[in-house]
């Protein structure tokens, strides 16, 4: 009996370890672990499981085709900025240009700063929406606009997003109390607990009712530009594609290929992000648009 128990235990342990090892082996077919025949690296300075990480792995890398070399996953934008300045390898990927452009509080240059010439184009957009808990008494568009002391949670992952959200919300309801959160993991629970009455953020859930949006394509919601004359009231946030040691025409063509790919369609459907109308503009016009967005934030501070 004891022998049978021992044999069974060892068999289960062995089987688990084999499957576990195989799982890791299967995981090694994960594109982050693979090397392709090409010469273009995908830059990634976000965690692999997040939205930018997933887009790098599931959308950008597959669209490079035979040009794909490998994913360079480097911890943090500052180290990545240093890396891309010192390498002669071709690098392409997502860059949160609005955040990394921002000077530090003491006025010194952001360590994640990259030159505008390395920005290829807008990648995609994520709209901001004003949402409250469905069924919450007294909540709605009128309350969002006119409510005295209503508490509005905003995404404030960096100074530039905090400034953008604050500027738009204050232009609509100067009496609102703005509560900054560093991530969706904090403001979504905050809304659920009732400590804020609304969130002004890119996330929607099925238990939320959203009343307004910055995106003109989202016609089911009131556009913020109807509530405010602020320049950013109908503007989303726009992650960018950046490229290093690449011909910018080649990089721009690659960006367009990615945006038109089925992988991108699938990614956007799963995140609530979208492709903005500005993608029809030339590269120079897109950069000008982003610059204007950014300058407006600086002016409103």
């Amino acid at each position: 009996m004891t022998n049978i128990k021992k044999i069974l235990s060892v068999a289960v342990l062995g089987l688990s370890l084999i499957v576990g090892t195989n799982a890791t082996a299967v995981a090694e077919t994960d594109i982050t672990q693979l090397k392709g025949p090409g010469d273009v690296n995908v830059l990634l300075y976000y965690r692999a499981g997040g939205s930018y990480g997933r887009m790098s792995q599931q959308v950008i890398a597959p669209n490079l085709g035979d040009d794909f070399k490998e994913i360079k996953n480097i911890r943090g934008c500052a180290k990545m900025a240093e890396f891309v300045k010192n390498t002669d390898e071709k690098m392409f990927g997502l860059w949160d240009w609005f955040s990394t452009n921002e000077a530090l509080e003491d006025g010194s240059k952001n360590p994640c700063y990259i030159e505008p010439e390395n920005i290829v184009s807008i990648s995609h957009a994520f709209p901001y929406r004003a949402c409250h808990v469905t069924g919450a008494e007294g909540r709605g568009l009128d309350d969002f606009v006119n409510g005295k002391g209503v508490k509005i949670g905003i995404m404030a992952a960096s100074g530039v997003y905090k400034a953008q959200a604050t500027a738009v919300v204050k232009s609509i309801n100067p009496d609102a109390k703005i509560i900054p959160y560093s991530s969706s993991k904090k403001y979504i629970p905050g809304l659920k607990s009732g400590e804020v009455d609304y969130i002004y953020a890119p996330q929607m859930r099925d238990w939320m009712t959203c009343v307004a949006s910055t995106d003109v394509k989202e016609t089911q919601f009131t556009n913020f530009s109807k509530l405010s004359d602020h320049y950013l009231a109908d503007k989303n946030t726009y992650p960018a594609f950046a490229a290093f040691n690449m011909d910018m025409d080649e990089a721009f063509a690659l960006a367009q290929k990615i945006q038109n790919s089925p992988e991108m369609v699938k990614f956007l459907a799963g995140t609530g992000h979208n492709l903005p109308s500005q993608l029809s503009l030339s590269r120079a016009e897109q950069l000008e648009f982003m610059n204007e967005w950014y300058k407006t934030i600086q002016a409103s501070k």
Partner: protein
Amino acid sequence: MYELVSAFFVGLGLGVVSGIVPGLNVFVSMLLVFPLLISWEPTSIMFMYITLASVHQYFGSVSATVFAVPGTSTSLPALHEGHGMFQNGRGSEAIMTAAIGSFFASFFAIVLIHFMLPYLSIFYQIFNTHIQVLLLTIAAITIVVFADNKIWISLLFWIVGNVLAMIGLHEYYGGIAFMTFGISALYTGIDLLPVMIALYVVPVFLRASKNGGRIVFDGVSMGGYIEAAHNMYKQMKMTLLRSSAIGAVVGFIPGISWGLSTMLAYNTELGIRKRNQQYNKQGDVNCLVAAESSNNAGVYTSMVPMLFAGIPITASTALIYNIFMFKNINPTLPFFESLYQITLVGFGISSFIGLLIAGKYVNFLRFLSGLDIRKFYIVMFALLVVICYVVAQEYYAGFDNLVMLACLLPFGYLLRNYNTMPLIYGFVLQDIFVESVYRLYFFY
């Protein structure tokens, strides 16, 4: 069905490996099999996750107790008390008692969730910043008061932990670069692993090596489990209930979840044991059980906000949520609730098999018995240095971690006669504590 069975074995295998290897936590393990997860059905993903999380706890506890290797910051109390017991020839008791406590707490959390479903909205109040600040403050005060140091020394450790954690670029506060000295590697802050190895594990090794001696370790047996369960029933009922309840409730805190619940349950037990003059400085089994049971209860309750409100509050549940979105599954409440049953089945099977396999692993480790303790710690330290490098090298940061470890090691040597747990917890909780206090300011 085949996919479900595969999910179980993948979860089991990864749970074993991640429990043994420090730095390979549940989240990182899930990233390793990300392509598999993307291809699986939601039920298989949940089944794999619950198996992984459950088995990881058992094996993580064994590694902390036997090798003094903390898989994560939540293993620190297990390391402090469990390894203390191991050093004194009570390793088998530590492992068996912790395993039974963990099993009880998991079961407690599942039953609690089941009966509290109609009243879950009450628990969502814990998402409130005010309550979070209160709980974090209690955690800070208790660790400072009850650690085995003079209070001012523990307070100093807590502050130093906070200062170390603040190193880096803080965009949330408007772009403050704190003590980065223009070094790009410091902008992302310091990793937990070099801090924990240099300032907590090394002092433990040094203290234990001082007296020398040999390892005494008997392994575990069915009879031993029954005896441990009997003793716990007689002597630890309140400890188990209290810690499981703390773990289950505090596990709701977004971002920190069972990390804080472990600390609060451990500190509470520590305070009670010290007040009653029952605390065993050579490794206290009640405190060990308190930490392990709250940890396990928290693992299960931290899933509840995702399952019943569509709100992921930990990195692992956020990853699962993202996978569902990527698969174009609309993550509605009825959808999540439909996964609840598979979660229960996963818990039942993985808990029993996890216990069984962990027992076999523990008995395999009996070969350590009789080894020179100094040599044992030298080998463990060398292994930790390698792990510290390898884990971070995935992000081209292995060398950064080694430099940081080298810089902190002299301080670890100097602090060898102190309990540096307040420093580590100051480091771990700083981010959420400071942000919560900062956010509180905007409410008034």
